[in-house]
């Protein structure tokens, strides 16, 4: 053997060590975050209960049922449609860890796009997760990709053709759960997850469904509630009620020609009243600087602050930041307002729950006391 053979072996060993270290981090993303549902939990199911071919796949995810046993309506709360939008996921977790249902039924899916929680978006330098203080100490929460894991659904086509409308989008969107509804029973993993969620809505006779999201601060629909046209009265009432709480929301009607989204397809395919809610999330912003767990939790970004101070930022941005606790509080208050509005319009299908923190509760106490 010559000298350069020895250096090649040395470098190969170093490569194996680095690959092993990296693997440990990547494989950790497949571990499920611990959640502690409240005592009101009546059943834990899986999404594959509604589409058996999801069983054992990376798209299968837990479905938590909180049934009061008292006749009433049913609501579904979906977090983690886009795993890089943490307030949706955290809102579902806070809700299920505190809720007591006194009438009707509440169903929660905290990680709707389970596959997306097992990776992050390439070239974005995103953290794999973050720690939050809770009653039981520091808790780890996964941060993921906007879309399903490439390893679960490959290759992306050049152009994604939505089923069944035929709408064409960029190939990347083929793994986007919120472009896949109403889904396809024998389609791609993402289409199957979408199909199972629609089946759940039909079989459980869900009356009101929430899809919780976040968007970059420069996106116009932040701080909005997007509704299907059949739910616009409920949405308008909810927005008015939120105004009384000094919380501003824009009411957006779901575009009829933009297919595949929850607020459009759930409403068209089922009897449910769908609502999609957005909050402002600086870690998704294109102007953002240092990208780390602090940015997820505190939402303070110096680049946005500089842009705001220069007068060139033509969007609403709080220089104090967009903390995760405030974003979760907005979602929880939004859900409450919509459910209250629904109860007003449909008193025979009331959904009544308690013990879920309000916006002002979280503003006063932080998130910590509501995480078990």
């Amino acid at each position: 053997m010559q000298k350069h053979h020895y250096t090649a072996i040395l470098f190969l060993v170093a490569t194996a060590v680095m690959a092993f270290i990296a693997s440990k981090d990547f494989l950790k993303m497949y571990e499920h975050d611990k959640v502690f549902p409240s005592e009101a939990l009546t059943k834990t199911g899986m999404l594959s209960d509604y589409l058996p071919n999801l069983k054992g796949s990376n798209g299968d995810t837990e479905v938590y049922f909180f049934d009061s046993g008292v006749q009433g309506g049913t609501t579904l709360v979906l977090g983690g449609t886009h795993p890089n939008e943490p307030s949706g996921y955290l809102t579902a977790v806070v809700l299920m860890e505190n809720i007591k249902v006194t009438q009707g039924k509440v169903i929660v899916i905290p990680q709707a796009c389970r596959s997306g929680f097992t990776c992050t978006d390439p070239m974005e330098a995103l953290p794999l997760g973050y720690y939050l203080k809770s009653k039981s100490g520091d808790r780890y929460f996964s941060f993921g990709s906007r879309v399903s894991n490439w390893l679960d659904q490959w290759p992306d086509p050049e152009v994604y053709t939505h089923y069944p409308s035929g709408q064409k989008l960029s190939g990347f969107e083929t793994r986007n759960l919120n472009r896949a509804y109403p889904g396809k029973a024998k389609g791609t993993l993402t289409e199957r997850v979408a199909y199972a969620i629609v089946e759940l809505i039909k079989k459980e006779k869900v009356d009101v469904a929430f899809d919780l999201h976040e968007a970059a601060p420069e996106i116009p629909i932040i701080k909005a509630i997007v509704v299907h046209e059949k739910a616009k009265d409920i949405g308008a009432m909810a927005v008015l009620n939120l105004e009384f709480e000094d919380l501003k929301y824009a009411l957006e009607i779901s575009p009829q020609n933009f297919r595949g989204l929850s607020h459009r397809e759930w409403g068209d395919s089922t009897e449910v009243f769908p609502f999609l809610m957005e909050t402002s999330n600086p870690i998704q912003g294109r102007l953002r600087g240092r990208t780390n767990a602090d940015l997820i939790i505190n939402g303070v970004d110096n680049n946005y602050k500089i842009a705001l101070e220069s007068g060139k930022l033509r969007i609403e941005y709080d220089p104090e930041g967009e903390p995760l606790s405030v974003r979760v509080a907005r979602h929880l208050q939004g859900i409450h307002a919509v459910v209250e509005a629904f109860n007003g319009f449909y008193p025979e299908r009331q959904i009544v729950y308690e013990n879920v923190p309000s916006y002002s509760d979280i503003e006063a106490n932080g998130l910590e006391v509501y995480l078990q």
Partner: protein
Amino acid sequence: MLFWIYIIILSILTVFVMIELFSEKQWKKQIAFVMILIPFILRILQIK
């Protein structure tokens, strides 16, 4: 099926990179080869 074709192509490329690694005499260039190998290995093992 396409996925497995991709994995086979990647495996062949990995072998070629390793052959080049052992035939390369400058250690600085060898480092470049092993840097390429890390993502290849993780992808073949379907970890990343």
